[in-house]
C-alpha cells in the first residue's frame, strides 16, 4: 500500500530537516525569497483589505495590503528586517488573493513571509510552535489515530483531556475533534480491488465510441477523505466510474495546506515532493489529477508552483482540477443532474457555503448552479462570508473566538435558510458549519452520487 511508510519519525519540536536547514534549500533559486517585485503590481486600492475576514473582526491584524505588498516593499535587506508578527494572525484563507484586481501575488507573499517569520523569529521550543507543528501535521496524528479509531475519537473528545489540551497546548476545548473512520478510504479502496476494479467498472459505463485515454483520473483524496470523511472519497470513485472514468489512487501525502498556514514550508515541501513526483508520472501518462477538497486542489494548482521548485510541478498544476469542476468541464453532468431526482436521506434543502479556497479557483457558484435543476433537493447559497476556521486557524485557543466571530454571518445565514443540512467542498469548513449550527454537512459529490449512481 502506498501509504505504508511510517510517518512517526516526525517530532514536532525538531524540524526534520535538522541542522542542514538553510533558507536557500527551501528556495534553491535565491531570488524566490525576494517578493519585492510583486509589489510592483499594487496600486493601493485596498480591495484586498475589504475582503479580509480577519481584519474585519480583529484590528490587531493590519490586513493583507500591509502584510503583503506594503511590507515587502518596505523591506530593504534580507537579513535583519523582521517580518511583523501580525502575520501569525493571517488565517491563510487567501480571499485577498482572489480579490486583487491588479495581480499582486498576495498568497505567495503571505506564505513566504509566514515561512520566514516561523524560521527566523519564532522560538522552536515555544508551546505555540509545537502546537502549530502538530496541527500542521494533521496527517501524522490522523495516521496514528486511525490505528485505533474509536478510542481516538473518544479520547480526543473527552472533556478532561480537552481541558488539559486547551491549557497546555492552546487547542480550544470548545471544538469537537472529527470522528475517525473505522476503515480508511485507502483501506476501502484496496479491499475493493484498487485501480483494476475501477478500470473494469469504468469500462462498463463508458460509451463504446469513447476514447479510454480521455477517461483517466488520479484521485488526490487528502487526509480528511482518507481518515475521517471517507464517504466523500467513496462518492468520488463511484461518481467518476459511473461517468466512465477509471480512477487511480497514487501515493500521496498531505497537500501541505495546513503547513503553509503555519509557516512550515520545509515540512510542506517534503510532502509536496512526494505528491508531485507521483502525480507528475501519472499526468505524463495522460491522467488528470482530481481533488475533492478545494484546499488540496489549490495547493497543487497554485501554492506549489508559487513556493517550490520541484520537477514536474507546472505540469501537475496545469492538470489538477476540483472534482466537481472537472465533471462540469468534461462531462454532461449538468444535463444528467437536470434529469435526475434525488430521494432518500439526501432529498434535503441544502445551505451551501463556498469555501474560500474554492472561491479562489472560481468555483464558488458551481454547486448552486449544478443543483438548481436537480429534482428532490433545494440549495441556497449562504453568502460570501468566510467560515472562519481556515483549516488549523480555528483550532488555536487564541484564535477560537475570532474564528467564531468570522463564522457568525455564515451561521446566521445557515439558520435563516430553508433546510437544516449544510453543504460545502471543504472538510474544515464543514467542521465549522457543524460546530456553529449543529447541521449535518455534505459534500457535493455525495449528492451527485445520490442523483446519478444506482445504490
Amino acid at each position: 500500500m502506498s501509504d505504508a511508510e511510517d510517518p512517526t519519525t516526525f517530532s514536532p519540536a525538531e524540524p526534520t530537516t535538522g541542522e542542514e536547514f538553510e533558507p536557500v534549500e527551501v528556495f534553491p533559486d535565491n531570488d524566490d525569497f525576494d517578493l519585492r517585485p510583486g509589489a510592483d503590481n499594487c496600486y493601493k486600492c485596498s480591495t484586498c483589505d475589504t475582503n479580509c475576514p480577519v481584519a474585519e473582526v480583529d484590528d490587531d491584524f493590519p490586513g493583507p495590503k500591509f502584510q503583503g505588498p506594503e511590507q515587502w516593499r518596505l523591506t530593504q535587506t534580507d537579513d535583519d528586517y523582521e517580518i511583523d508578527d501580525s502575520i501569525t494572525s493571517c488565517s491563510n484563507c487567501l480571499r485577498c488573493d482572489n480579490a486583487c484586481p491588479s495581480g499582486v501575488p498576495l498568497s505567495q507573499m503571505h506564505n513566504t513571509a509566514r515561512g520566514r517569520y516561523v524560521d527566523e523569529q519564532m522560538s522552536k521550543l515555544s508551546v505555540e510552535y509545537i502546537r502549530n507543528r502538530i496541527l500542521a501535521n494533521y496527517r501524522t496524528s490522523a495516521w496514528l489515530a486511525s490505528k485505533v479509531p474509536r478510542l481516538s475519537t473518544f479520547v480526543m473528545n473527552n472533556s478532561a483531556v480537552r481541558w488539559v489540551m486547551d491549557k497546555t497546548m492552546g487547542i480550544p476545548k470548545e471544538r469537537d475533534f472529527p470522528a475517525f473512520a473505522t476503515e480508511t478510504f485507502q483501506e476501502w479502496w484496496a479491499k475493493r480491488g484498487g485501480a483494476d476494479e475501477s478500470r473494469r467498472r469504468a469500462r462498463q459505463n463508458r460509451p463504446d465510441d469513447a476514447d479510454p485515454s480521455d477517461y483517466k483520473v488520479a484521485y488526490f483524496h487528502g487526509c480528511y477523505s482518507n481518515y475521517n470523511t471517507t464517504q466523500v472519497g467513496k462518492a468520488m470513485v463511484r461518481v467518476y466510474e459511473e461517468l466512465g472514468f477509471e480512477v487511480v489512487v497514487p501515493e500521496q501525502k498531505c497537500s501541505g495546506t495546513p503547513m503553509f498556514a503555519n509557516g512550515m514550508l520545509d515540512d510542506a515541501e517534503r510532502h509536496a515532493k512526494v505528491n508531485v513526483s507521483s502525480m507528475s508520472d501519472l499526468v505524463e501518462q495522460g491522467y488528470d489529477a482530481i481533488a475533492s477538497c478545494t484546499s488540496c486542489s489549490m495547493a497543487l494548482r497554485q501554492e506549489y508552483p508559487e513556493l517550490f521548485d520541484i520537477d514536474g510541478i507546472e505540469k501537475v498544476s496545469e492538470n489538477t482540477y476540483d472534482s466537481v469542476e472537472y465533471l462540469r468541464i468534461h462531462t454532461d453532468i449538468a444535463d444528467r443532474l437536470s434529469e435526475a431526482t434525488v430521494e432518500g436521506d439526501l432529498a434535503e434543502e441544502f445551505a451551501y457555503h463556498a469555501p474560500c479556497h474554492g472561491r479562489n479557483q472560481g468555483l464558488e457558484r458551481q454547486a448552486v448552479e449544478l443543483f438548481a435543476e436537480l429534482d428532490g433537493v433545494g440549495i441556497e447559497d449562504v453568502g460570501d462570508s468566510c467560515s472562519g476556521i481556515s483549516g488549523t486557524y480555528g483550532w488555536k485557543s487564541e484564535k477560537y473566538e475570532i474564528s467564531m466571530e468570522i463564522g457568525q454571518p455564515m451561521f446566521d445565514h445557515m439558520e435563516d435558510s430553508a433546510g437544516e443540512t449544510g453543504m460545502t467542498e471543504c472538510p474544515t469548513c464543514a467542521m465549522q458549519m457543524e460546530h456553529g449550527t449543529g447541521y449535518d454537512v455534505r459534500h457535493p459529490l455525495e449528492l451527485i452520487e445520490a442523483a446519478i449512481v444506482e445504490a
Partner: protein
Amino acid sequence: MAIDSELLVVGGGLAGLTTAVTAAREGVDVRLVSYKQSTLRNASGLVDVLGYTPDGEGPLTDPFAAIPELPDDHPYRTVGVDGVRSAMDVFDEVTDYRGGHTDTNALLPTHGGTVKPTARYPPGAAAGVASDDRDVLLVGLQSMTDFDAPHVAAHLEAAGVPFDVSGVTIQFPGDLQADAKVTRYAKLLETDPATRDGFVERIEANRSGQQRIGLPAVLGDDDHDRVRTHLESELGAAVFEVPSGPPSLPGLRLEDALFSALDSAGGSFETGNPVVDYEGDDRIDHVLVEKSGTEVPYSADQYVLATGGLVGKGIDSDREGVYEPIFDCHVDHAEDRYEWFDGDVFGDHPFARYGVDTDDRLRVLDADGDPQFDNLRAAGGVLGGYDYAAEKSGSGVSIATGYHAATAATEEL
C-alpha cells in the same frame, strides 16, 4: 465540452453587471465571468451620469439635456438620451438608490471637501445633499486619515454651501489599532451595541443642535440601513455618510446589490479566473478561461466585453503602446507615449479617453471601422471617447452602455 450560455459577459464591474442583469431579466441564459474583483469597489458609490461637459462646463444641473450636445464619438451619443433613461430605470429598479425622482443632478459633499454633481446616490448619502439648507455637523475619527472632518467642513464652507457646517474629530469607542480597516469599524457598528452607544454619546457630546450629522462611510456593511437608522433615531437627526474611497463600503454595497439582483434574475456568474483568449474569425466561437495554466472553453452566442479601462485592466499598456489584452481590439492612441498625457495634473489627458470604438449597436470596431466580430460588444470603461473622471460620467456610461449592449445582444439571439 465548453461551458455554454446564450450571452457571456466578460467583466464583473458596473457595466458587466448591468449587462448581465438586464439580459437575465429578459430571460436570457447569461453567464458573467469576472477575473478578480472590479473597480466598482473602489468607487465612491455615487452614480454620476454627467456632471461636466467635455469642455469643463458645469456643474450641469440637467445631465440628460446635455447629452445631445456631446461629441459624436461619446458613448452616450451611441446609446442616446432615451437609452440612458431606460438604463437608469433598470438601475433604479434593482437598487435602492435615490435621485430618480428628478432629472436634476444633486450636489453631494466629497471627502475631499468639495461637492460633486451626481444623478443617483445611495440612501446612506441622501441626507448629505448640499442643496438642503439644514445645518451639518461632520464627525471624523481620530485614526481615519481619509476623512478629516474639520478640514472638510472648512472646505465646504469655502465652497459656499447654503448651510452652516462644522467638523469635529472624535475617538471611536473601544481601543482600536490606528490602522484598523474600514470593515472593522463597520463590523463593530453593525454587531456591537456598546460601540453604537458609545459612538452616539461621543457624537452627541460634540453636537450643538445640527440637524444633520455627516460621518465617514463606515456605517455597517450588510446591515448598513439599520445602523444608520439606529443612529438617526438615537440622535434625532438625519445621518449621512460622506462617500470616499478606495476602500469604499458604499461601492461594495452597490456591488453586492447588483450581484444579488443578478442571482435573483437567474444569471450565472463566477469570479477568479481570467478570460485570456478566444477562438473564431468573423464570429467568436468561444473564449478561453485560464484556470491555473489550463484553458477552459466557454461558449456563447453573444459576447459583451466589460473589462474596464486602464484601472480595471481592460485596457493595458507598455512602453510601446496601448492595447486591449483579450481580443486585441483596436485602441486608437498616439504612437509617442509622451502624447498620452497633459503636463498639468488635471489637464486634458488623452489616456483618459483611450478605449475601444464601437458601432451604434456597441459592436467593437477594428482599425478600419468595421465590426471586428459579429457577436462582440463592449460596455463601460473599456470604451473610448470619454473622460469619465473629468466629466463625472463613469457610472452612467457603464450603466447605459451595459444596458444597451444587453439589449442589442438579446435582439440577436
